[in-house]
């Protein structure tokens, strides 16, 4: 297939979909139909892209036919294609959930177009090969997240969004200055060309590369919620309805880590300076503090939210170890986490729909009443905790193996300890929500959760849908691990990327 079509479809489909949704403003049925079509098309095109990339190697297209460093490049290697595919899967699941799991008011005020714009932003971030364009797509992501997080305007949402907005605008500013500095020092915006430039041993500004990387580490560090920069996440992710927070929590923070990996393998090679030990330290702290935070929570969604941070630490760990195996572990872990985290959020949504609360204290008895839901939760939770043969194990295993091979014993030890605490917090939810008998006091429906839907069982659909994929990458892990390893190799041996983009 024509690569320019393949590469632009993930951008164009949601964009056209969103435009159509805007034209059918406030007509929920029509918008749902449009969104459904787009989700389907998006996953097909992402799947085709992945297939094509795995068959023929890195694909590129030059927007506007302007040659490489001058026009904007869209480029897809295996890593981005994998992320896109998982994003589209999550998109379908969240869309299915929103059909019954979101109130019609929120849908009326732009839920579907916002979701589609958000997906467009995700595609843009994954596909772009230009550092300023990356910034632009991140802003698209950001504004969509703002709008979605505050959609509905409850007190908690507004409070959370305010913190999210402030800190993320700050991050965007830092990123923008970083882009300016990079352009000024190296005279290019094209990531591949930058990669080429920083690999010239005699470039006069090479010593300033670390300085540039600090901007991007901080900027994307904030967006991906690594240790001292994560505070917006636990403040905001648990406030909106599940149909929103599942997508944002499941996907968006991983997009930040995706970018970090992309830039720190291509441009800001951390090998030569203090960045690598720095990243190791950050990943360890992120893991530990995230998991401690999760252990302290007493709310279904808050546990899950805080947990994201800890898992981000794992993803950073692969980058910090900087070997193909560890990086493959990170990639696999990202995909696993996108699917599993979203699924856990969706489960919490199903639970909340019927019990009107997320508080561990008030929930209970689901194990007896809804054994199937309990099974779905248990599988996801164990996958998150990295119990073999579920997906989390593979990622963890590759990271641990990579860490040991590289001699980074400390970080592996930390990650294993953290994984125990993960098990602790997941089983805490299991104990309280599923095993414990339901407390007699029945809680009233509160704002963030829609009233009972007509087809409560329909909410199982997205959970089952995601579970199929989780089990697929768990039990039939080999092809995915293989892909992750190839992706990691593409990332670390940058020549193929540079050649594909610059055609040199």
């Amino acid at each position, binding site marked *: 297939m*024509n690569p*320019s079509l393949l590469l632009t479809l993930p951008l*164009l489909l949601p964009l056209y979909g969103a435009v159509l949704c805007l034209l059918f*403003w406030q007509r929920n049925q029509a918008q749902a139909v449009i969104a459904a079509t787009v989700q389907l098309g998006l996953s097909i095109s992402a799947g085709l892209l992945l297939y094509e990339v795995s068959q023929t190697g890195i694909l590129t297209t030059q927007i506007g036919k302007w040659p490489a460093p001058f026009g904007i490049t869209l480029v897809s290697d295996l890593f981005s294609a994998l992320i896109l595919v998982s994003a589209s899967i999550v998109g379908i699941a969240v869309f299915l959930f929103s059909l019954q799991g979101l109130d019609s008011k929120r849908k009326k005020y732009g839920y579907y177009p916002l979701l589609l714009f958000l997906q467009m932003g995700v595609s843009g971030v994954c596909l772009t090969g230009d550092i300023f364009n990356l910034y632009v797509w991140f802003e698209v992501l950001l504004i969509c997240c703002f709008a979605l997080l505050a959609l509905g305007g409850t007190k908690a949402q507004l409070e959370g969004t305010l913190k999210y907005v402030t800190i993320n605008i700050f991050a965007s500013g830092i990123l923008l200055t970083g882009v300016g500095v990079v352009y000024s020092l190296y005279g290019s915006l094209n990531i591949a060309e930058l990669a080429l430039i920083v690999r010239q041993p005699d470039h006069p500004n090479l010593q300033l590369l670390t300085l540039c990387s600090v901007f991007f580490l901080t900027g994307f560090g904030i967006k991906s919620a690594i240790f001292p920069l994560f505070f917006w996440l636990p403040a905001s992710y648990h406030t909106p309805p599940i149909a929103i927070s599942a997508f944002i929590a499941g996907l968006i923070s991983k997009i930040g880590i995706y970018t970090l990996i992309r830039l720190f393998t291509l441009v800001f090679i951390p090998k030569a300076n203090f960045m690598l030990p720095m990243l190791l330290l950050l990943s360890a702290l992120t893991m530990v503090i995230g998991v401690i935070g999760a252990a302290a929570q007493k709310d279904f969604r808050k546990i899950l939210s805080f947990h994201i941070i800890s898992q981000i630490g794992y993803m950073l760990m692969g980058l910090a170890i900087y070997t193909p195996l560890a990086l493959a572990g990170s990639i696999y872990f990202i995909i696993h986490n996108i699917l599993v985290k979203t699924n856990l959020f969706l489960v919490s949504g199903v639970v909340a729909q019927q019990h009107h609360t997320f508080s561990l204290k008030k929930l209970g008895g689901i194990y007896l009443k809804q054994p199937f839901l309990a099974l779905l939760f248990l599988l996801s939770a164990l996958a998150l905790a990295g119990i073999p043969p579920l997906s989390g194990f593979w990622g963890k295993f590759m990271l641990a193996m990579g860490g040991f091979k590289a001699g980074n014993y400390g970080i592996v030890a930390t990650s294993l300890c953290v994984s125990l605490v993960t098990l602790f917090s997941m089983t805490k939810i299991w104990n309280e929500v599923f095993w414990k008998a339901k407390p007699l006091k029945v809680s009233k429906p509160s704002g963030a959760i829609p009233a009972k839907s007509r087809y409560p069982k329909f909410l199982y659909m997205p959970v089952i849908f995601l579970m199929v994929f989780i089990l697929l990458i768990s039990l039939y892990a080999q092809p995915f691990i293989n892909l992750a390893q190839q992706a990691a190799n593409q990332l670390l041996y940058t020549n193929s990327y540079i050649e594909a983009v610059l055609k040199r």
Partner: protein
Amino acid sequence: MKTIILSTAIRLLTPVFLLFSVYILLRGHNHPGGGFIGGLIGSIAFVFHVLAHGANATARVFFSLTLYHHPRQSGHSRTRYFMQIMNANIRGRRKGRNMENRWNYIFVRVRPVYLIAFGLLLAVASGTIGLLAGQPFMSAFWLDVHLPVLGSLGTPLLFDAGVYLLVMGMVLKMIFTMSKE
């Protein structure tokens, strides 16, 4: 703000501003200007109108269209009927023998959100043309004509026009919503 002079001035100035904004849009490719600046100027024209007259008035004046029509009477010629309709719609005169109760109208409201959608659609569609022709997205196509203000005609201009519409729609949407608060 609501002094009569000012509001009259704004009423008169708004179309001027709008024309100016279109001019800025069109010359943007060769001189300072372009879709953004044009769109912003155009929207600022509306903003002042909103500040002076309120959002509802602006919406009524600029963004809604009432089309009057009536069934053609058997004795009237086609030309006369046409004149009547034109009279009614453009000059606002809906008179005529036994006509008072026969006028029907169609009310069309252009919501700013449609402007946004249409602008975005225009912008992305101008890029898609290249894609459909088997070229990369946003590949430019130029017509071989040369116009005085515009210079050449091509898809990038379409793109810029989309930007113009979207910016205008966005600002209008915001201002309308805010002033109704």
